[in-house]
């Protein structure tokens, strides 16, 4: 039964360009990018119990690094991508050391502050980031010579990367490390008493989450072919957090669903609802109040209840 579900999903995803117009294919690409971003953040929030309001830092820095290397050193993508990823991951290492000196709200505040510093730098450090004009004139990579400029090829590229990312994240979650991580979320003191190095576990998770944020950042800059400081803003991080919470933190499918909700709200619903900004805030509030676990666990519960009643 479950396998059938997976096959159906795979068929739907793979066949999307056949039955959906170019606009929807592009929209789905954006959902996939947001899904990677949210899934990485979910490691921290859902499985690690550490809520961050600064995840956009990694997306932004990776995007800017890739853009800068392309424009200033004329570096081809097969070289700039690993460098951008490495640089951002190093930054995540550093940020992790600083941020993990606190937990809970303090952690939230530091991640927010760090990301605001980067945001400010994005606007001010004009010689590097070109300030509020952003960096444009960028290109998409051409892996194995395939041109990704069209909506469909780029979509498949995103799909492959997303599947890989989710699989990697799932592997971590299901591994002993993942179990340990959940332990530090639920009972940090007990874990420490058992000899686990809670700080190290958290730091490693932080860095890993940052890495996937960077991956999302690369896809983001390839998709838009443009990067602007708004990508580093509080709103950007908050939307990622919303995606995690809305979908269901602490589940694997949650961030993907949540990402779809946020992207659709922002880009699609805004065509029909003029006050979509208000709607976004309202959705935040309603989900947190009525479905605090998120949509996926909520739906699961409804589904089980329905099946239970059917019997």
């Amino acid at each position, binding site marked *: 039964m479950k396998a059938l579900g997976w096959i159906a999903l795979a068929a739907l995803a793979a066949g999307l360009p056949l039955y959906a*117009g*170019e*606009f929807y294919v*592009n*929209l789905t690409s*954006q959902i996939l990018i947001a899904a990677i971003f949210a899934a990485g953040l979910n490691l921290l929030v859902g499985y690690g119990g550490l809520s961050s309001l600064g995840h956009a830092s990694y997306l932004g820095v990776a995007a800017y690094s890739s853009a800068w290397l392309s424009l200033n050193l004329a570096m081809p993508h097969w070289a700039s991508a690993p460098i951008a990823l490495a640089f951002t991951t190093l930054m995540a290492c550093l940020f992790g050391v600083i941020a993990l000196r606190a937990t809970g709200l303090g952690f939230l505040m530091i991640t927010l502050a760090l990301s605001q510093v980067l945001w400010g730098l994005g*606007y*001010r450090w*004009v010689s590097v980031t070109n*300030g*509020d*004009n*952003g960096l*444009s*004139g960028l290109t998409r990579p051409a892996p194995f010579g395939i041109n990704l*400029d069209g909506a469909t090829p780029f979509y498949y590229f995103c799909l492959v990367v997303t599947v890989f990312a989710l699989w990697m994240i799932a592997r971590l979650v299901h591994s002993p490390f993942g179990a340990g991580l959940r332990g530090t979320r639920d009972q940090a003191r007990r874990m420490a008493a058992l000899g686990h190095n809670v700080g190290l576990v958290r730091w490693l998770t932080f860095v890993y989450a940052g890495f996937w944020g960077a991956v999302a950042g690369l896809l983001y800059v390839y998709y*838009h*072919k*443009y990067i*602007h400081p*708004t*990508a580093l803003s509080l709103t950007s991080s908050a939307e990622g957090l919303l995606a995690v919470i809305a979908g269901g933190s602490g589940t694997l499918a949650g961030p993907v669903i949540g990402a779809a909700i946020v992207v659709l709200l*922002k*880009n*699609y619903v*805004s*065509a*029909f609802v*003029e*006050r*979509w*900004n208000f709607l976004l805030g309202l959705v935040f509030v309603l989900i947190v109040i009525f479905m605090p676990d998120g949509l996926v666990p909520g739906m699961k519960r409804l589904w089980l209840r329905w099946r239970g009643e059917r019997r």
Partner: protein
Amino acid sequence: MTIDRRKFLKGAAGAGITAAAGAHAPLVFSQGGEPIRIGLLTVKTGPLASGGIDMERGMVMYLRERNNMLAGRKVELVVADTGGVPATARTKTQELVEKNRVHVLIGPLAAFEALAIDDYIRQQAIPTLSVAAAEDMTQRKPNPWFARATSTSSQCAHPMADYCAKTLKWKRMAVIADDIAYGHEMLAGFQRVFEENGGRVVQKFFPPLTVPDYGTFLAQLKTNVDGIFLGFAGSNGFRYLRQFNEYGLLGKVTPVGGMTALDEAVLRNMGDEALGILTSCWYSAELENPVNRAFAPAFRKEFKYDPGFYAAATYTNGAMLETALNEVKGKVEDKQAFMKALRGTKALTCRGPVQFDEYGNVVGNVYIRRVERKEGRLVNSVIYTYPGVSQFWTYDPKAFLANPVYSRDWPPAKHLES
């Protein structure tokens, strides 16, 4: 009163209102049943919303006055809200082009939005009538599908500098603008012309865009300058002037402004402190040409305030669009021909006579205006006209383009005093 897409379509279907706008015998060409679809990229939420809403109003008014028919074909307007975020601007552009299949784009509002969609426009070959002022879009990286009927950042600053140097005979000035590309480009243009005409810019300020308070900058302003040029956009010019007044500087230093510092939208919330201030812009609600004499009062009647930069921008774009459409007999589908016609258009619009240069940027009048009180409200009265101003001012285009793009550091400010 804002009109969302659904309401607009309903209204368009039943439209029968003909306002007394520049009497226009509609030219009729038969084109089958397909309407011309126009996409308007504007900002309706967030800090840039005020200009964005005006853009929509100007466009809707233009089309409604013509029964939503241009060149004999029905016109459908689709309005998209970009929120002032470049990523959203790109998605909305894609939506308009791929989902709504628009033939022509109008907008976007902000420079960074234009830069974000630049490559997409080239890829999709969509004629775009831009409002955004980013200079290089029509200079060093010209987009062949772009036509800009408003202004580059510095296009209206050059004449103002000329006026300050030659007419006001000022010798020493300070300049201030938001620390964004728009501000950098405007001040650079101003400084260049002012200093080439014997003046000196002795102070240059770039407050961050979101600074709540200008006290720091006002404290540093030298009071022995002849004047200060304000290159602000949106509400910052208005806030700066209020604080300028509070520090008692209004009598000591004379402020003059660029095209967005004292826009009509901002002026209506100001008081006597604005009286007598000169600004330069390609439009004023007080212009006496036949098109504006009908447009401005009609706008004022409907919305209870004077049209400013943004409303006039889309109204002018409407006129350019219509003239080009008439030229190609309504066949907007033939993109190459349409673009050629658009760029070759000469039209009489609410801002005066207008045409495009070979890079797609407008050549038109720039007006020096003074704030006066008329019929109880503040208006920008026109006191001087610079005719046929291009983005290159009086410089040779090739030489102009050989220089680096205007920025914070170019041209270098050699006369700054600390």
